[in-house]
């Protein structure tokens, strides 16, 4: 426990040093920059809400990665699952938009979950039955997912009333994920927290969670005692996909108001980073998502107010990931050496 805390502290210190070096490199005063970022992320009510707005899809995508990771699958497909989930949910919305009712929102959510589950499940099937590496297949499926959404948004679903920018018709209120306290933060954040709790309860102490761990550690032994790797691979990938699908439909309905290109701003990749940083733990994914969400929200604000390109947030994420990997590697070697 203490060793883990020490490793985290070391990683944080190293990252801050490297981030400071990055700021120096681009010609900005490092301490001031870091302070400004913290302000833009958590400084006032508006900043906090923007941070949570970003944190929601990131956390959902992180969950989408953590569930299959319990089985040892390294999926990077949250983006593609997000897109296809949004696609499916939008399809439900378009079909039911004429006959509106209270049932529209649950139907849209279920549709999104189904779409995401399908996209994740495909990669699961390819891995389980054919042996195609899931990292590669999910990466390819990401690109296909984005293109499929573009196809519909530029094509048959295009809203004729919106001449300047391709998008669907706006989501009616009955199909929109409700907002919390009138801010931009929406119920998706609550769904994500429920996901964290459910994931932790279901996959950590339960028999199912232990079965996944056994299969992850030693597939042969798991097979011997009757555990089905193939079925579990498909199930975990599908569940992860469904969660990412929720992220997609929330972004489309609540944040952007319509399905349009550029639905995800790299949330899938950021979710992967969060999943890794949290050590694939459900509980830790939540606070880390908020931190990284703050980083990205601050990056956006920096671009608006300080003329620092938003791409610097991406660079910082990369530096953070690299630092965490390095420290984790060192900690693991120390641990092995000390027995």
């Amino acid at each position, binding site marked *: 426990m203490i060793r883990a805390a020490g490793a985290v502290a070391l990683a944080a210190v190293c990252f801050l040093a490297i981030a400071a070096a990055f700021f120096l490199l*681009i010609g900005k005063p490092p301490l001031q920059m870091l302070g400004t970022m913290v302000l833009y992320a958590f400084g006032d009510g508006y900043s906090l809400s923007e941070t949570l707005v970003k944190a929601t899809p990131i956390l959902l995508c992180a969950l989408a990665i953590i569930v299959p990771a319990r089985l*040892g*699958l*390294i999926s*990077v497909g949250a983006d593609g699952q997000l897109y296809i989930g949004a696609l499916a949910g939008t399809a439900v919305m378009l079909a039911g938009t004429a006959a509106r009712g209270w049932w529209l929102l649950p139907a849209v959510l279920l549709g999104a979950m189904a779409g995401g589950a399908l996209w994740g499940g495909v990669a699961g099937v*390819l891995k389980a039955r*054919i*042996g*195609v*590496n899931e*990292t*590669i*297949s999910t*990466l*390819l*499926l*990401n*690109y*296909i997912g984005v*293109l*499929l959404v*573009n*196809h519909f948004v*530029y*094509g048959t679903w295009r809203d004729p009333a919106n001449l300047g920018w391709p998008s669907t018709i706006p989501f009616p209120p009955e199909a929109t994920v409700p907002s919390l306290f009138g801010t931009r933060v929406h119920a998706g954040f609550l769904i994500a927290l429920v996901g964290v709790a459910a994931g932790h309860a279901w996959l950590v102490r339960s028999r199912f969670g232990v079965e996944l761990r056994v299969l*992850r*550690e*030693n*597939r*042969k032994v798991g097979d011997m005692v009757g555990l089905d790797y193939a079925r579990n691979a498909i199930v975990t990938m599908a569940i992860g996909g469904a969660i990412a699908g929720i992220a997609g439909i929330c972004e489309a309905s609540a944040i952007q108001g319509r399905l349009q290109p550029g639905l995800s701003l*790299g949330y899938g*990749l950021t979710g*992967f*980073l969060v999943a*890794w940083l949290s050590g694939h733990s459900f509980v830790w994914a939540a606070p880390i998502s908020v931190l990284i969400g703050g980083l990205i929200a601050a990056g956006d604000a920096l671009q608006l107010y300080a003329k620092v*390109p938003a*791409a*610097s*947030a*991406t*660079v*910082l*994420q*990369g*530096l953070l*990931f*690299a630092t965490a*990997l*390095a*420290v*984790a*590697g*060192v900690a*693991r*070697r120390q641990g092995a050496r000390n027995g």
Partner: protein
Amino acid sequence: MAEWAALAWFAAMLRSATPLLLVLLGETLTQRSGIINLGVEGQMLVGAVVGFAVAATIGGPLVALVAGGGAGLLLSLVHALLCLGFRANQMGSGIAVWILGLGISSYYGRSFVGAKVTTFAPVLGVSPVIWSAILLVPLAGWWLYRTRPGLVWRAVGESVDNAHALGIRPRGVQLQAILVGGVLSGLGGAVLSVDYTQTWANEITKGRGLVAVGLVIVARWNPFLALPTALFFGFFEAAVLRLQAVGLEVSSYLLACLPYAACLAVLIAVHLSARHASYMPEGLRGVFDAERRI
């Protein structure tokens, strides 16, 4: 006239395939030493942006390509440091490098969006870069199978422990392999922006580097097979443009799915035949099969 059309199609195929061929060759050689590098996508991106920046400011496509290769080399050092120095997980490290490449290329490329550069004059109808890339294939293959350093690389890829017991320094070899992959992927990116599209756009590589990592399996980790594999992908890419030009009534976005779907389909076919496993360097098995903790 039909011959001209076919030739034009073939030329388009070659042009599409060349950036991918360079990355594929680089990643094949890297994986031969037992290291997988998903970061080639990021390396391609920095190669593309640096190459383009050099071509747009200083001018001269040759200098630009060299600069691109150098940029790829530098970024690959991160992967080498993480995997070999800190013993980090290879998949995670590759993605970290990819994210870094995305960020850096976005950051420095923003002032170059939409700019244009000029490239080499064509030799025998296509850019001389393409001929050079094609020449690299038998060169790499001959080096891997017929020289002592190539033999050492293959031994390291099969078993790091055995190589160490035989008196080889495996980490030195793997470092070289990652750096070679870095130069080639950076070069591939520079070729993409400077020679092929002659422009810069954000995320210009569109996943070509990641596709290359998948295609290494299809090419059976054999540099000689990198050429037909890259041509296969180039075929689909060229088909996307040609079919649109012909006026095919299919959305350009669906067509754009073709290369990725084709790559996935070929991967599935290769795995179904189950022969790929015998060609895989043993050192990669821990990364791909994931039956052990990574």
